[in-house]
């Protein structure tokens, strides 16, 4: 798939048609859902507390929907007015009492299934800073949006300046010990480095977690940031467990056949293998040459 980032500004790409398409494509919805669930998992939020979460690049509110199901209260901002319109319609529907289609997770009879949508929307460009008061949010998520900041659409837009402005303001508006999980699709390795460099430059601790690292299609980059400097150690400690999960998901992916591990070429016909093979042939009553010191020995090269 070609990269939409190259075609111009996000608000131009995500026009009305594209926004409707985005929300009606079940594949897109599922992918977004999966990423959001993973991002929430990485946030390490306490499940029995409602948190106040900022969703940057909320688009049509798919990620907000997941946050609502988890009982959190969110504010979304996006640069595309048409995407926000789609999100707004859904939120409006929930006020009109058409929220029956919000499915309850099986077995969970928790009281906190909010009857109304708990989202608020903002038409805003994240590259121009974030219009909130300091220490407002408990957490921040961003799904497939950060890479848009790496492209400049006019002469006055400097990607690095925009990234730095974004991260420094994000740092300010998050509460102490809050976390931010930002999922993004870097076009090149340099982009991923640039983004994480900008994040650490303003004081964030943390790093990039990669899910499905050896698949081009399913590969996902998560930038996990933590505000508290003292907890950066804790972040590192929690990283191994994250990597473990990554390994699990990798093996799950290979089972699905998304990507097969590269088989080692060396050592298929080893001495043990040949002796074992001869043994089975002998058991079947075939005439097999006896095992000697010449068995499975390499032939000399001709020249």
């Amino acid at each position, binding site marked *: 798939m070609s990269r939409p980032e190259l075609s111009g500004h996000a608000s131009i790409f995500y026009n009305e048609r594209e926004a409707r398409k985005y929300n009606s494509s079940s594949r897109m919805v599922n992918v977004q859902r999966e990423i959001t669930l993973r991002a929430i998992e990485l946030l390490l939020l306490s499940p029995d507390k409602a948190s106040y979460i900022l969703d940057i690049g909320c688009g049509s509110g798919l990620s907000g929907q997941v946050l609502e199901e988890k009982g959190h209260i969110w504010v979304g901002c996006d640069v595309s007015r048409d995407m926000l319109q789609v999100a707004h319609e859904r939120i409006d529907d929930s006020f009109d009492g058409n929220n029956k289609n919000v499915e309850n997770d099986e077995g969970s009879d928790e009281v906190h299934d909010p009857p109304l949508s708990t989202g608020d929307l903002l*038409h*805003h460009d994240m590259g*121009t*800073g974030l*219009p*909130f008061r300091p220490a*407002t949010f408990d957490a921040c998520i961003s799904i497939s949006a950060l890479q848009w900041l790496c492209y400049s659409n006019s002469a006055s837009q400097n990607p690095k300046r925009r990234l730095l402005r974004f991260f420094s303001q994000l740092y300010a508006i998050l509460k102490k010990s809050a976390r931010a999980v930002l999922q993004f699709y870097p076009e090149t390795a340099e982009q991923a480095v640039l983004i994480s460099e900008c994040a650490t430059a303003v004081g964030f601790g943390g790093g990039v977690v990669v899910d499905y690292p050896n698949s081009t299609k399913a590969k996902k980059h998560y930038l996990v940031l933590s505000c508290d400097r003292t907890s950066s150690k804790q972040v590192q400690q929690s990283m191994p467990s994250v990597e473990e999960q990554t390994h699990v998901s990798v093996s799950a992916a290979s089972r699905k056949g998304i990507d097969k591990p590269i088989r080692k070429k060396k050592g298929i016909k080893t001495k043990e293998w040949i002796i074992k093979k001869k043994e089975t042939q002998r058991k079947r009553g075939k005439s097999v040459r006896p095992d000697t010191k010449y068995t499975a020995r390499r032939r000399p090269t001709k020249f």
Partner: protein
Amino acid sequence: MRNNTKEADGKGFPLRITAVEVRVVDNPDATNVGQREIDFVKNMLPVLDWPALVQAASQLGIPTLPPQLTEQLAQDPAFLQALYHILMNVHLVKGMLTCPASGREFPVTDGIVNMMLEEEECERVRV
């Protein structure tokens, strides 16, 4: 509405609200606010700028908020419930937010506030 009161534009805070259309959602079980929500409001109290919230609420036509937030009030579950209702169920559908410092206006349509800025209007960042 909650966020509208909280947004700051540089040093400009709070934003003045000019409401054209306000929608108060009638929650049938408004009294049935769970413990989770009450905990949330308690959590939000230090974040809220109380005078700004009172001002914003009166600009939206809700004069019922007490002018001062006392310790005792912060423990009262009935008050917290009412506050949750104000924070979550009052929406500014159409109107204008005005920055008190610069006079810059942010229009609100369909409940979405337009906060798009030009590059020149942004904070300078050294690269």
